[in-house]
């Protein structure tokens, strides 16, 4: 009886050790793999997903929600769609954001751009040198943005708004001439009807232009291990991409 119990304990200890060694080896493999091609390795991908989900729930779900769909009322981006503000939604892009954050004070974060407040006093503000706009100019830009999205808009106002966009407002500088944004600095696409802040109404667009936006994603590189960061990046990637195993079945 004692012999059997001892054997079970030894087997248990060995199992725990084997699991630990396996996890250690898989973790090392995951870290050494190319983040943008690891989805092609189903076993590694599943291993990362298993760990990533719990890290996401513990660290990210507080803002993004457990399903990662965010909250436009709070300017929390939806991670489950195919619209990426920064980069192209590759695992390496996501990993960089998790690691260094957005406007997080980390020197390696995406800190380059933020949406200026054109309805505030911009005297002495060092963020591009563009002046404040009048309320009418902002309303005109709102109409221009609505027209770009193919929504009903006042044509004369939108025409004036286009001029503000390309001249006084300097909106083109970040959102680009065709208003399709710039993922290199996190400038949103203005023609795709995906609204990061608010419900896309005239008032919420006015508020964004008049009072500015500068959401923050924390940098986790001092709080999470490199493995946990890689795992959670894979989990976030999976929210908007079909898993390799499922893709194979299609």
């Amino acid at each position: 009886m004692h012999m059997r119990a001892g054997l079970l304990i030894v087997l248990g200890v060995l199992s725990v050790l084997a699991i630990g060694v396996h996890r250690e080896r898989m973790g090392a493999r995951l870290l050494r793999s190319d983040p943008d091609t690891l989805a092609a390795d189903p076993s590694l991908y599943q291993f990362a997903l298993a760990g990533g989900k719990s890290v996401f729930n513990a660290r990210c779900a507080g803002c993004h929600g457990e399903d990662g769909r965010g909250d436009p009322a709070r300017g929390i981006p939806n991670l489950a769609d195919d619209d990426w503000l920064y980069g192209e939604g590759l695992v390496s892009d996501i990993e960089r954001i998790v690691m260094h954050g957005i406007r997080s004070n980390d020197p390696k974060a995406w800190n380059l751009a933020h949406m200026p407040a054109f309805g505030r006093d911009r005297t002495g503000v060092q963020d591009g040198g563009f002046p404040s706009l009048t309320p009418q100019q902002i309303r005109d830009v709102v109409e221009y943005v609505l027209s770009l999205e193919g929504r009903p808009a006042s044509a004369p106002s939108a025409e004036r708004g286009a001029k503000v966009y390309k001249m006084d407002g300097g909106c083109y500088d970040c959102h680009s001439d065709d208003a399709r944004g710039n993922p290199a600095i996190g400038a949103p696409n203005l023609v795709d009807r995906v609204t990061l802040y608010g419900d896309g109404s005239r008032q919420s667009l006015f508020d964004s232009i008049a009072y500015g936006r500068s959401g923050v994603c924390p940098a986790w590189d001092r709080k999470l291990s490199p493995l946990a960061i890689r795992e959670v990046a894979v989990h976030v990637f999976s929210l908007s991409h079909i898993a390799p195993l499922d893709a194979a079945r299609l």
Partner: protein
Amino acid sequence: MSNWREPNRVNTSRSMILMAVGAVAGLMLAGYALFTARGTSTLFVPPEDVALVNQQPISRSDFLLQLQTLFGVDIAHATTEQRRQVLNEMIREELFVQRGKELDVASTDPDVRSAMVNAVELEIAADAITTQPSDAALVDYYKAHTEKYSREGLMTVHDYVFPKDALDQARRAASDLRSGRVRPDAVAQLGAKESPIVGDEQFYFAARIHLGPVLFDAARALDNGAASDPITVGDTVHVLLMTNNTRPLPLSFSEARDQVLNDFRRDAINHMRLGDEAFLRKRANILIADDLR
């Protein structure tokens, strides 16, 4: 061997074997920890790093980012030569950083000092940045600072300017404007000139700049359609006619949440920095020259 399985009886063989197993397990654990733990000398490059330079790691993520920055390729598409070049550059940088520490560059180079201060502040701020405050804490903060969270007021105001010696005409104009006896565009007949820098709809801050503080304070108190009493500013007398005054509207918590969170975090970071600075000052031995005490 007969009492091997009876723990209440002494068995020398069992004791020796268990002791040996314990010793081997301990040695294995110690060896593993010795060669893998951070801060100790190791012969293995951890999987999250691409190299160790005098035991200082060069992180894999930095390597990938550098590869992307220099050559615009990910690791799967980088040539061996590109990888080698990036790695050599990073090793060179690490060697020079280590040499810089030995030479105590921070004591002489203001850029290095500034970078070190920033890095330490970032380290201090990490907790505040990564902590997600509860909504209750944010609501409390919002309630304590409601004056910060409002939409800018809007006004469309006309400023009729009279010479200093035309105070009576200014009084008449104000009275006529209030009673509606004179149309705003006929005020010129009373000897006034309308200021061209106001008249269109403006944000409060812009009106404050354009009118100056005295006239702005008078203007923002006016309701729609109201005219002010004559106001003397320097060598001129002004009568203000308010066409539309939309006073600043407070933002609800949900509308201001993003801004509240940023302000809450900024205050938390400042608080932590001040606390750390106080701690550093307390434990430091600081001597100040007599003439500066």
